[in-house]
């Protein structure tokens, strides 16, 4: 159905205004990343644009190496979360068994444990498992995710029950139904969750810092933090340059992700 011209204009205006508001802080960071520190600190308008900050950001830590690590870690976490969360959500929606609700609330309850409160015991755990400086230590603790389970549960509940019935009649067991019907039909939310999982892992700082002691498996956020100093004046241009470099892959991912968010998979499923 065609969208009327008037509404199109209004929508575009709203979109542009909103985009401007939402993007201003980021834009400001981008501009700052090209400014000299003196301009930034004195609050004056940029007197010159230079790529100097980027050069220095690249020099300061093994950026590419960190980016690759971040990618590996984030992708591993994303996949792990998708698998575990979708399995759990499946059980909560499609399987009926005793204690299901209790377990679900227990899962939800885990969201309420502040991460900061559990970080030390968890650190001890991976230390005892010998996972420090290992990808395992960086990824596995995040595989189980109440949040994702909850998100997918909400989505799975929207799947028409006829689809499950048709599969049951076709002689399909739970595993196959999960793989062949539930996952494809819930593609939209899997992508959303995947993007979320990837980005939160990408942005993790405290845990990777604790779980690694050297550069081998470290991730970009730690690199970013290394650009800041504590007792001295910070070079904000370089810090912003680092932030911009780290944001670019995430923006690309978001762009690709939202493209996959296509309309209504359930549409037309049923009479």
């Amino acid at each position, binding site marked *: 159905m065609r969208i009327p011209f008037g509404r199109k204009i209004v929508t575009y205006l709203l979109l542009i205004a909103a985009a401007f508001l939402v993007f201003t802080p980021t834009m400001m960071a981008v501009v700052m990343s090209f400014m000299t520190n003196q301009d930034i600190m004195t609050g004056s308008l940029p007197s010159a644009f230079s790529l100097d900050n980027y050069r220095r950001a690249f020099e300061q830590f093994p950026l590419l190496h960190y980016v690759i690590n971040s990618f590996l870690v984030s992708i591993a976490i994303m996949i792990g979360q998708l698998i575990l969360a979708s399995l759990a959500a499946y059980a909560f929606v499609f399987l009926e068994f005793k204690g299901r609700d209790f377990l679900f609330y227990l899962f939800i309850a885990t969201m309420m444990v502040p991460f900061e409160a559990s970080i*030390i015991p968890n650190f001890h755990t991976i230390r005892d498992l010998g996972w420090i400086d290992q990808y395992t230590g960086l990824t596995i603790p995040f595989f189980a995710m109440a949040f994702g389970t909850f998100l997918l549960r909400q989505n799975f509940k929207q799947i028409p029950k006829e689809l499950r019935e048709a599969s049951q009649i076709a002689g399909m067991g739970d595993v196959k139904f999960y793989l062949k019907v539930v996952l494809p039909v819930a593609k939209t939310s899997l992508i959303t969750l995947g993007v979320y999982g990837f980005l939160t892992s990408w942005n993790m700082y405290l845990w990777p810092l604790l779980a690694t002691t050297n550069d081998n498996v470290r991730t970009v956020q730690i690199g970013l*933090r290394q650009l800041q100093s504590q*007792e001295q004046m910070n*070079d904000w241009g370089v810090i912003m340059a680092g932030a911009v470099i780290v944001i670019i892959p995430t923006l690309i991912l978001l762009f690709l992700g939202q493209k996959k968010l296509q309309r209504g998979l359930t549409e037309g499923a049923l009479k």
Partner: protein
Amino acid sequence: SNDAEGSSEATETEDGKQIVTFWHAMGGASQEALDKIVASYNESQDEVEVRAEFQGTYDEALTKFHSVAGTDSAPTMIQVFEIGTMSMVNSGHIEPIQKFIDEDGYDMGHLEENIVNYYKIDDQFYSMPFNSSTPVMFYNKDAFEEAGLDPENPPQTFEEVEAASKAIVESNPEMKGFALQAYGWLFEQLLANQGALLLNEDNGRSGVATEIGFTEEQGKSIFEWVERMNTDGTFANYGTNGDNMLAGFLAEDVSMFLQSSANSRDLIDNAPFEVGVAFLPHPENVEREGVVIGGASLWMSEGKEEAEQKAAWDFMKYLQSPEIQAQWHTDTGYFAINPAAYEEELAVEMHEENPQLKVTVEQLQATNPSYATQGAVMDMIPEERKIIETALESVFNGGDVDTTYQTAIEQLNAAIETANKARGE
């Protein structure tokens, strides 16, 4: 995950060099400088390879050390900020470097006296001083000139600061006179400068402190000072954020402020005006006592092989050498802990170029050695700072000095009590 293994377990490189893992919290420019020194050390000999590894902020690094202390994952040596000193001593997982000093017959006498004073506890060295700084007062010489003040004769006392502030604001209503970051460390320094103790039991150095050590007059003087400037409208409030304050100073929004001397180089380089550096002010009615050393020191892990510890000790000694200290001083703005460094060409050149930098050294050297300027040691210092910061903010925002002070004192004493109790002693 294959190549990730080893670093924490292996203690030797493939070509037989002794590995020393060195955890630090130096980010930004300091990290660059530190990495340079480490590289030069690794090149200077072929027995030892030092691996400097960034571990986040001081807090994060210390937390992490406490978590791995005593296990294989612990580093050979670690940089810890001055207020972590007591918690390191209490942790039981460190080897006091006094052991190596004695074994080696090493003489610590060539180090800066004030620095030595701080780190010597119960007459022994637990850790090796490394990056040190003290607070100074920065001021805008151009603004001083405009206001008809003498840029070469900065205010020395609280009262002079107030007067100067008024003059500044009068000449330029856009500019505030003075800014104080709500930062516990600065409060401690202002106390010490009055000769006041932060904690009883001689700042916790003669015994375990049981309550605060300053008098009401000493403590309140600082709050009242701020309050007076606040009423005058000459005080700029930047809250707890140091970066904001620096930016405010550079943007000529405020003409004077207190901050770590480690910022000197950056400020002088970035300011579009002439930057002056002055001694920390003190109340008129008391003598200047001096400042306490801040910064961090290097600690040796317990339970490491002797060879490894020896290697680390060798590196620590290397860091003391005048050339290295001169380089460190010029690259970062931290003190040279070894005064001989100031004779090095590099340092001399820089001081000639920026004579203001000498002020920081002079202030340190003008400090009277006493319990007050030795600084307090206790494991609740971080908490103390938070309490003070809240109190300062309260005053900044026009809170009543008496109640604010009373609340702060109560909280401080309670925190000391809890800390003592928590040690289970």
